[in-house]
């Protein structure tokens, strides 16, 4: 059965439209970040002035630093704590396991504004001054569940006897943990870490409610600056978009190269 012209064109058209929809605002944002005037709708020439003002703006630099440092620190801590907790959970009795997992999943299932309010009330009640510390604690709190959810499935598939066998052969529990279990669940740990990093980097609502004393992350910054036309935000956005794209492309291309290596070796 030969496909009619329509049947051939329609899918292509659909995909083209989809990609146009997704990338229109992104491309336009990037485009106007190079505009020589303050307009976001009419082009008046090429200029790097907004990138210059970006690097001179203390508030923006501060927000970027805050976002990155919180994302890195909370990812590291959440990954370690989450992995250890997941290993512990996989060895608990079913009833307790269900309970722990239900509580653990609350930050994921709850709308983020509810989690945000809860944490804000917590910090206010405990009279912890709001700022970098509270933002960090909040981020760790919502990142750990993601790590756990990422690692647990891998733990389930693990052969329960291998760790025991290692210990029978003289390994300490710690060695069994680090040298036997962890390497096998590494893919889960890594994907958990990636998810945690993204959740932290992208977070707005929780950070917005638990921060204070002038500490802002990028999302909060864009939120407050979005009231006035400010191509400096476009410059910041462009940099972030490029970074994300590069990272995603790299992540997707590396496996392809590894495949090629293998075929070459074979």
């Amino acid at each position, binding site marked *: 059965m030969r496909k009619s012209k329509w049947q051939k064109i329609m899918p292509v058209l659909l995909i083209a439209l*989809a990609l146009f929809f997704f990338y229109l*605002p992104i491309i336009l944002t990037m485009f106007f970040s190079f505009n020589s005037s303050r307009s976001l*709708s009419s082009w008046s020439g090429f200029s790097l002035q907004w990138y210059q003002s970006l690097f001179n703006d203390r508030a923006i630099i501060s927000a970027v630093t805050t976002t990155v440092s919180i994302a890195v620190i909370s990812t590291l801590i959440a990954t370690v704590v989450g992995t250890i907790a997941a290993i512990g959970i996989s060895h608990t009795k079913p009833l307790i396991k269900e309970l722990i997992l239900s509580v653990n999943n609350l930050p994921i299932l*709850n709308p983020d504004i509810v989690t945000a*309010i809860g944490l804000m009330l917590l910090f206010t009640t405990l009279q912890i001054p709001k700022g970098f510390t509270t933002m960090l604690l909040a981020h760790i709190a919502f990142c750990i569940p993601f790590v756990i959810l990422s690692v647990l499935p891998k733990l389930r598939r693990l052969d329960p006897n291998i760790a025991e066998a290692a210990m029978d052969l003289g390994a300490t529990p710690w060695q069994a943990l680090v040298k036997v279990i962890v390497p096998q669940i590494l893919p889960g740990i890594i994907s958990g870490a990636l998810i945690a990093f993204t959740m932290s980097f992208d977070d707005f609502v929780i950070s917005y409610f638990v921060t204070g004393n002038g500490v802002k992350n990028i999302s909060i910054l*864009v939120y407050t600056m979005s009231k006035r036309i400010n191509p400096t935000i476009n410059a910041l*956005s462009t940099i972030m978009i490029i970074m994300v*794209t590069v990272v995603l492309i790299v992540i997707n291309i590396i496996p392809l190269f590894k495949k090629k290596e293998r075929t070459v070796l074979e």
Partner: protein
Amino acid sequence: MSTFRNLVKPYMLWMGIFIVIPMLLIIFYAFTSEGNSVITVKFTLDNFIKFFDSVYIKVLIKSLQIAFVTTIICIIVGYPISYVIANTSSKVQTLLMLLITIPMWINTLVKTYAWISVLSDNGIINSLLVKLGLAPISMMYTDFAVILGMVYNFLPFMILEIYTALAKMDKGLIDASSDLGANKVQTFQKVIFPLSLSGVISGITLVFLPSVSTFVIPKLLGGGQYMLIGNLIENQFITVGEWNFGSAISLIMAMIILISMYFTRKFDQDKVENGNKKEVKHA
């Protein structure tokens, strides 16, 4: 192994402080009234009664409506796209899915802000319309802008879920179906669509529930008069200062969402069970 079991204990302590206590605080604030110290606590249902006023119920209904419309659009637009992608060659699939998922990883504020300059009265679309001699359209601060922003934000999730379900499907079933005489439409109706349903449901969970509680997108694209439940909660906590009422609303919303998730899970499980039963019957 009891040694490993102990590893979970520190985390249980952490959960107690950072997950359980916050929820308890919300419940506490929701059931008490303002101006109480630890000694003179006054329990009341006033905050909940206040919510069941038609004005606030309207806000809840509007939030559900917007979330519903967003989800439907995501399904109607997302399914064909996923279907087309799933039917391309493997290399093209990887490329297309990469292109679709890149926006997912871009910061929500950045994405929504980008739409402001596109939809604005003196933004790019209107500048183009004016140049072409047409009348400008006011798009900002409307339902259209909010739904557009929401769809833009959530569509990749829907596509991802449906695509995954379609890609996992056993192609043999499709072949079997056409071997048995079904045409393309029938195959789609009776084989492909039912099997991809779990993907649609996962997609709905990823789109509908966050949409109900979102407040950033409505605030940026809808303006001050756009009061959805998320905006109402934010308004009560940040501007009005009624933490008790705000907590009550948060609790109501959390309950709605948790119950919905419970039912979606049950539905999904039932579907899987029944689906298996059907397969066994036909085989």
